[in-house]
């Protein structure tokens, strides 16, 4: 997090080209293309069933796309397994929080360090100096991350004993522990009250400022319009709009997708 905050540049960190995915008779994604630039917060919105989570799962290796390619950080990102995607630098959270519920909060984040650390079986058994140092570094970094997201006071509590909002934050800390270049968040504000959402917004902005690009799926329009630099709108698996929040919310296709008619999108508070 100590890296200087780069301004949003023109060079894409992640590019998807013609991504398609079909489940049985349902075309979940058809020919979706998009670009996420390094340093921005990129929103992914759309009505229920629009294909947001499918796109997310195709990106993170849970499904393989039927067609299309991803390029991440200058290299193709195709047919990788979820763990390889994480290795490449994309970390994710889950819509229905998937923490290691019976492990302490700190250990959840320490597990996130797995992919960036090396100690193997022999290191673990012999506990040589390098392993001990690495272990200390893992613990230190995990604790820093808990402080960063604001749940350090619950470090030794079991993940499932944390309040809902704290669980969401813990999941973000765990994802950040993998040193991602792109942090992909699946509805992080779901179920949060206004205060929690506000502090989430502050957290997202801070993460971005500290150099991590964010992909955000969200239903909370206010949050999306407030925090995202650019937004991709999906409907029935197709891209119907892409651009800045201001542009997108005036787009007639978007309005009609959300309201099913030619009604103005009422987004009070969406600055």
């Amino acid at each position, binding site marked *: 997090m100590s890296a200087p905050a780069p301004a949003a540049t023109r060079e894409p960190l992640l590019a998807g080209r013609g991504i398609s995915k079909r489940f049985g008779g349902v075309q979940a994604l058809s020919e979706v293309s998009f670009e996420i630039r390094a340093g921005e917060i990129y929103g992914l919105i759309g009505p229920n069933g629009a294909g947001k989570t499918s796109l997310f799962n195709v990106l993170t290796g849970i499904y393989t796309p039927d067609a299309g390619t991803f390029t991440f950080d200058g290299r193709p990102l195709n047919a990788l397994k*979820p763990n390889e995607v*994480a*290795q490449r630098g994309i970390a994710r959270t*889950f819509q229905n929080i998937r*923490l*290691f519920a019976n*492990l302490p909060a700190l250990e959840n984040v320490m*597990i996130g360090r*797995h992919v960036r650390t090396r100690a193997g079986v022999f290191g*673990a058994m012999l506990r040589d100096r390098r392993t001990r140092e690495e272990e200390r570094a893992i613990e230190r970094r995990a604790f820093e991350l808990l402080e960063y997201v604001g749940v350090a006071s619950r470090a030794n509590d079991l993940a499932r004993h944390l309040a809902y909002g704290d669980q969401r934050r813990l999941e973000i800390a765990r994802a950040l522990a993998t040193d991602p270049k792109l942090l992909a968040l699946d509805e992080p504000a779901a179920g949060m009250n206004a205060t929690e959402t506000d502090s989430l917004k502050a957290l997202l902005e801070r993460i971005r400022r500290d150099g991590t690009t964010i992909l955000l799926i969200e239903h909370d329009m206010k949050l999306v319009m407030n925090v995202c630099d650019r937004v991709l709108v999906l409907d029935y698996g197709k891209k119907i709009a892409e651009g800045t929040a201001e542009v997108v919310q005036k787009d007639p296709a978007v309005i009609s997708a959300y309201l099913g008619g030619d009604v103005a999108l009422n987004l009070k508070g969406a600055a």
Partner: protein
Amino acid sequence: MRALVDTKGHPVLVWVGLALVGLALVALPFALAGIGTAWVRITNLAILFVFLALGLNIVVGFAGLLDLGYIAFYAVGAYAYALLASPHFGIHLPFWVILPIGAAIACLFGVLLGAPTLKLRGDYLAIVTLGFGEIVRIFLNNLSQPVNITNGPQGVTLIDPLRIGTFSFRDTDTFAGLAFTGPVKYYYFLLVVLLAIIVINLRLQDSRIGRAWEAIREDEVAARAMGINTRNMKLLAFAMGASFGGIAGGMFSAMQGFISPESFILIESIMVLAMVVLGGMGNVWGVIVGALLLSFAPEVLRYTVEPAQQALFGRMLVEPEVIRMLLFGFALVLMMLFRPAGLLPSATRKRELEVRR
């Protein structure tokens, strides 16, 4: 990083306690020899079962993979030792060469079995491993034809004992006026190995690898999303458990001097699993207690059930072995129903097993 034993609270008391336990363990074989030499032998076998249970605990307790064919790895290690240190092939390699070979072969079997099957869901994996255990046993029984490799059901005899130079673990030596019989010497050897294995287990559990296993056990999808290569990690757990089994098997061969497929039947796999379950999956100390309890149970029963039946009915109605198996079956059922996390559960595993009921 947690210490092996928390000595911060009462350092002196703890060290005194540890010293007493150590002393008791050192004096144990002589105390046991007083009751009967057989007890030292029984204790040695019990320690071997502790090895096995700790090995299986890596697979079942740490990584959450149910293996019902674990004894096959024990068998592989035992036969590797027996064939490389007996007149059967006329090969007599020293034990420090064979034990690693046995561990490596068992490890290879673990990987061969695990690689295609570890993607299977838990209960299927259990059945496949069970099938594998049976296949190994059937092969051991039949590989006397057309070339005599295992000597079939007769087994392999005259297996070399552990030997360092001229110092053999089978003979009796007198030292400082005390008679060190074969079993007593093996006891000390096993005690040292046991200590090492306990330390290895505790360290593994509290390491990057141990955490990865825990993550897989808790939520495989999330573990993968965190960049953990779940397939390799599961395979690693399987291979490590298998190597432990292989080493234990080699020592079994050396101690017994004779092995046959009879020692590696399914019920032994289930017995080791029961030790892990009874003691508390994932908890090293619990597993040790479970293994000791179930290993000594038949002996204790032999000395209680037999006289009790003689006194009550004037003859033996039910053999202690049968009663042991019945108790053992009831223990499995009752433990799962009322104390699913075992006698001394690991804190995490207990939460996991209880939360979903």
